[in-house]
């Protein structure tokens, strides 16, 4: 028991690591929020572009969506960080993670929103057109509000899952929670900072996981 307390719940070590790990946690939160904003707005933009039904554009978006839904997130981050400099493009760790994870979230949200648009009964389009609505108001007043309601729980779940990927930032030198805790662990030769990091992750993600459970319930009841 003493050994566990000494190694994993060492108060002195945790106190020493606290400032660095908290700074890391701040970065985790910032990267997560930026990823969600970038990813969902880009995904919505892509889904709207598909509504324009321009064939070459549709194909390009479909390829983008498949690529970023299929490749592992870590592969994308490593590629951006260690591959792009050969193109003369050097990205900071922060930009790498927000861009990489944002691109993945954009692909998933684009697909989810587009599927939701397709899932609406065709009568919705017909009725709106019969009322004399022009294409753009029809899209924004009739189709999107319903599609977004259908898509929200799925996008929320995906956003939470991808946000957990911010821990991968440690692979591209982003000093987020996990990376800071690992550095502290190496310096102090004691894994208590990892316990601290784990506790912070739980603090951040347990409410989100609970939220996704509530949303799933709501969908299950509606369906």
């Amino acid at each position, binding site marked *: 028991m003493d050994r566990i307390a000494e190694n994993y719940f060492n108060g002195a070590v945790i106190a020493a690591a606290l400032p660095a790990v908290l700074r890391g946690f701040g970065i985790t939160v910032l990267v997560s929020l930026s990823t969600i904003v970038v990813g969902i707005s880009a995904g919505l933009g892509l889904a709207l572009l598909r509504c324009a039904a321009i064939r070459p554009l549709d194909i390009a978006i479909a390829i983008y969506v498949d690529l970023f839904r*299929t490749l592992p997130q870590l592969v994308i981050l490593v590629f951006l960080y260690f*591959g792009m400099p050969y193109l003369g493009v050097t990205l900071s760790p922060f930009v790498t993670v927000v861009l990489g994870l944002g691109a993945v979230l954009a692909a998933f949200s684009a697909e989810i929103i587009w599927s939701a648009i397709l899932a609406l009964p065709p009568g919705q389009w017909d009725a709106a057109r019969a009322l004399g609505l022009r294409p753009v108001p029809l899209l924004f007043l009739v189709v999107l509000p319903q599609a977004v309601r259908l898509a929200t729980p799925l996008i929320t779940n995906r956003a939470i*899952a991808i946000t957990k990927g911010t821990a991968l930032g440690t692979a591209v030198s982003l000093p987020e929670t996990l990376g800071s805790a690992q550095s502290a662990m190496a310096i102090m030769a004691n*894994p208590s900072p990892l316990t601290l990091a784990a506790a912070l992750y739980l603090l951040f993600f347990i409410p989100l996981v609970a939220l996704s459970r509530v949303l799933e319930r709501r969908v299950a009841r*509606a369906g």
Partner: protein
Amino acid sequence: MWPGPADPVQDLIDNFADLDSLVRVYPLLLQGFGLTILLSIVTLPIATASGLAVAVAYSTAGTGVRRMLVVAIDILRAFPVLVLLVLIFYGLPFLGLRLNAFAAAVLAIALNNTGYFGEIFRAGIEAVPPGQGEAAAALGLHRMRVLIHVILPQAIRKVTAPLASNALELVKTTSIASLVSLPELLRSARVAQEQTYNPTPLVAASLLFFALLWPFARWVARLERRALATGH
């Protein structure tokens, strides 16, 4: 005839699609590809089975145990899987428990996905109308047989799309094993890149990942679209 390396297109090809580099490092990449597949086929059945076990335990347990299982599932789902891996690989040795990179990766990914699969199966079982189980029990079927022959087939049909999607995510997740120096595909590509001084191995590894996973991703997308249209 061909323009020299000052030409940007040639420069791009030399860096990102250099055949000489590829010839030099492809055995390394293939070995990594094999390890990625091995890691996936070891982890996926373990995670699916333990997730199913948790869900079945949930469906047969009383209120107190249920509450504990939900908390356990949520904690497993709340941890980023890389945090679990680091805890297991770098944290446990301080207790004298040293796992090799492969075992640590299997354990971390399986634990995390026990939460995911457990939640999916649980939702599926809950979506089967209680009358199904009651009718089967009234016919004199044993509880185990009710579960295996009546409840689970219907439950799994209801959650095929999330199950498939999660299986795909699990295989993608195996790439985090590269961060504990397991020479799977991504790690091999990074090692190869240090030999070739160009990102061609990374491009090749990405293509291999894509070739492996794309058919599966298409299938998942079709299932999800159908689920969205029919409500389950």
